[in-house]
């Protein structure tokens, strides 16, 4: 097991290097000029050239790449070309909101989706199944910005239960945190509930048709025991994969929700950096997201052993 984990962690290095080369070249080949953003619209061509020179953007690509890799090797993610702020401190101040909303979303989604999926499978082709599946299709189909604005309209502007926007860290109290985080998390939950509930239903249906389920029922096991002890545990591996990849997606892809609810997370940081062609920030964010994907996949793979004893590393 330990050897396996070590091998997987070491395998991260070439993956990250490839990502680094790819993102560096892709950004340099994309039209755009951070110097123009920095200088503003009224700048003259001559001043723009001076700023490019001062930023090091006129150096040959291989020199720029070597400097960046050298910085990375020293654990330095660089400095924003636009705000002159260290990228690491920018990420540090923005990752908290994204992580906490992501964790809350996954908790809420799992708490709702697994019982819903089990219920839908258990009541296959009956009323409950159709209700769950209708909700799932809606959750998938309605864009988050629509769901978000509907929730804001109902729960914030009409009922005054929650603020319209903003983020308060957990360190300022659970109440304040939940008041601000609940609506964004609920908005994202509509998608992930749909995703996880459908996956749970599909796998449960497959497992419920197995011989050992019939045997369990024949032995007189209660329906709850059959569903949750025998069926769900065996259906858990693909569900876990969906939850894990869903979490990784959440970290990298919550920009719309962050924008609608004005949450200063890393999704908005990345999009803002892309719009401003702030190369060091974009590079760091893509590396970080790739690393998180690799890490989450590793955790998922390891967690399989808890649900399926046949899996060994």
């Amino acid at each position, binding site marked *: 097991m330990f050897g396996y984990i070590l091998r997987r962690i070491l395998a991260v290095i070439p993956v990250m290097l490839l990502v680094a080369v790819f993102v560096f070249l892709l950004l340099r080949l994309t*039209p*755009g*000029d951070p110097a*123009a*953003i*920095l*200088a*503003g*619209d*009224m*700048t*003259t*061509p*001559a*001043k*723009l050239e*001076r*700023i490019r*020179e*001062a930023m090091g953007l006129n150096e040959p690509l291989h020199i720029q790449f070597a400097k960046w890799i050298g910085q990375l090797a020293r654990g330095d993610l660089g400095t*924003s070309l*636009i*705000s*002159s*702020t260290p990228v690491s401190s*920018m990420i540090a*101040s*923005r990752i908290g909101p994204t992580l906490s909303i992501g964790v809350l979303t996954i908790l809420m989604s799992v708490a709702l989706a697994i019982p819903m999926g089990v219920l839908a499978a258990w009541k296959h082709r009956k009323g409950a199944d159709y209700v769950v599946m209708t909700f799932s299709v809606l959750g998938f189909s309605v864009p988050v910005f629509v769901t978000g*604005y509907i929730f*804001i309209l109902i729960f*914030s*502007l009409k009922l*005054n239960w929650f*603020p*319209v*926007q*903003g983020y308060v860290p957990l360190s300022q109290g659970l109440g304040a945190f939940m008041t601000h985080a609940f609506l964004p998390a609920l908005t994202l939950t509509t998608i992930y509930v749909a995703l996880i509930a459908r996956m749970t239903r599909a796998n449960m249906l497959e497992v419920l048709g197995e011989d050992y389920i019939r045997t369990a029922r024949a032995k007189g096991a209660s329906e709850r025991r059959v569903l949750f002890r025998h069926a769900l545990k065996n259906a858990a591996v693909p569900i876990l994969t969906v939850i894990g990849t869903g979490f990784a997606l959440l970290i990298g892809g919550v920009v719309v929700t*962050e*924008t*609608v*609810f*004005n949450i*200063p997370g890393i999704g*908005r*940081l990345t*999009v*803002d950096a892309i*719009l*401003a*062609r702030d190369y060091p920030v974009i590079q760091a964010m893509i590396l970080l997201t790739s690393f998180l994907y690799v890490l989450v996949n590793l955790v998922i793979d390891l967690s399989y052993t808890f649900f399926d004893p046949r899996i060994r590393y």
Partner: protein
Amino acid sequence: MLKKLTAALLASTLMTGAAWAEKTITAVMHSGLRVLDPIMTTAHITRNHAYMIYDVLLAQDSNFEPQPQMADWEISEDKKTYVFTLRDGLKFHDDAPVTAADAVASLNRWAQNDAGGQVIMDRTESLEATDDKTITWTLKEPFAPLLSILSKQSAIPPFIMPARVAEQPADEAVTDYTGSGPFIFAEDEFQPGVSVTYRKNPDYVPRDEPADGMAGGKVVNVDAVKWVTMGDIQTAVNAILSGEIDYIEVLQVDLLPLLEGDPNLTVEVREPVGYQTMARLNFLHPPFDNQKIRQAALYAISQEPVLAAMAGNPEYYTICGAVLGCGAPLESATGAETLVEGNGVDKAKALLEEAGYDGTPIVLMAPTDVVTLATQPVVISQQLRDAGFNVDMQQMDWQTLVTRRASQSAPADGGWNIFITNWLVPEISDPISNPMLNGQGDDAWFGWPTDEKIEELKAEFIAAEGAEAQKAAAEEIQRHATDNVLLIPLGQYGFPQARRNTITDMIPSPVPVFWNMKKAD
């Protein structure tokens, strides 16, 4: 007795509570603050930030007239020496007094990056601090626009920084944000692109005169001002409806119905002059290297449809052919009659025929991600086609456009022929600072016109003495700029702002400022 004691205790508790309650104005500005050095960039949000924390020697009143702010001035009889005297009570946020040496260092750094500053420096014999409070500026020859340029409110006003900060090269961003303005920058609370907080500077001594434009006393009536960036304007609208924010600087016209019915809100156009939208042509490549074809493009365009598509409601736009802006002191509409009246298409067709236009496609760059620039290219493309131009409208994001507009290559090889941008009217109201009126070829703004005549006319403007003579010189500049088509003015617009009714006494200046403003409980 017991009643009196209870009342006194209650009153004292309430007063203490009121004193403790921090009064903060929360505002959503037109964009997020990321660049903090106002001398490095012409970005409006950075200029707005600078007005919060720095002060200026002179400032323009609501009539664009220079007025004393940090300093009064005297001009010698030969009009070649200006002596500025700093007023009493000026202190930086680190308690150090503001000295003439700080002002000289700041002016020198500013002049490296500002077009107007460079023009002044070309005519400067010496600029020195003659004592702690006196700055003596000696010119080689009289230069009438000096006070006007020193007091300008955009794009780069000469903000005064401590000498230790201003001695840094102009192409390297400052990292010490000590100013002497009415607010102090809360550096530890700053999140680039997310939020910025300014606290009242308790040691700031405002001038005695009432606030007028950017001039007069900067009296701060709140404890703090917080600018919050919201990526989606709809979120800002929801937030002001729920009372979570106090002010939105720029509103899109199509969202106004959401706010106009709310009795707690005021929707208004704050800026008296607003923005100019305009088209710039590339002088280096066919077909716009031909003056007659440039003129044909100007005649082909009618402002009304362009502005209607952009702002929708005529309340928020003004048809205006003035190169130096309508509502500005040097306004003139000479040469732009067809733009205003929309009746130049036949003339455009005749000019194209006369010039022998061979159908060379013109590459019109159209940004899709900037709301205030997205519609004009579409309307203009059709107007140019109606006159006989072969238009290749290429859509792209603004970042791609700003990169591509710096290219002097032929349009077919990644260059361009025409693009549109917007300016705050005070930025372009002065022929010396207006980037479109630079005719120095490769050293000119993107489009690179080589135009000796405009340079001569600007020299005449500089030499003109008195308002009447300057106005006459500006009229000639207007005539030539439209004749040579240094730009095509497309009109003016001013998007509305929204504030909760608890916010009062906001100054109707082009730059949104937060002094004078009050917030009721």
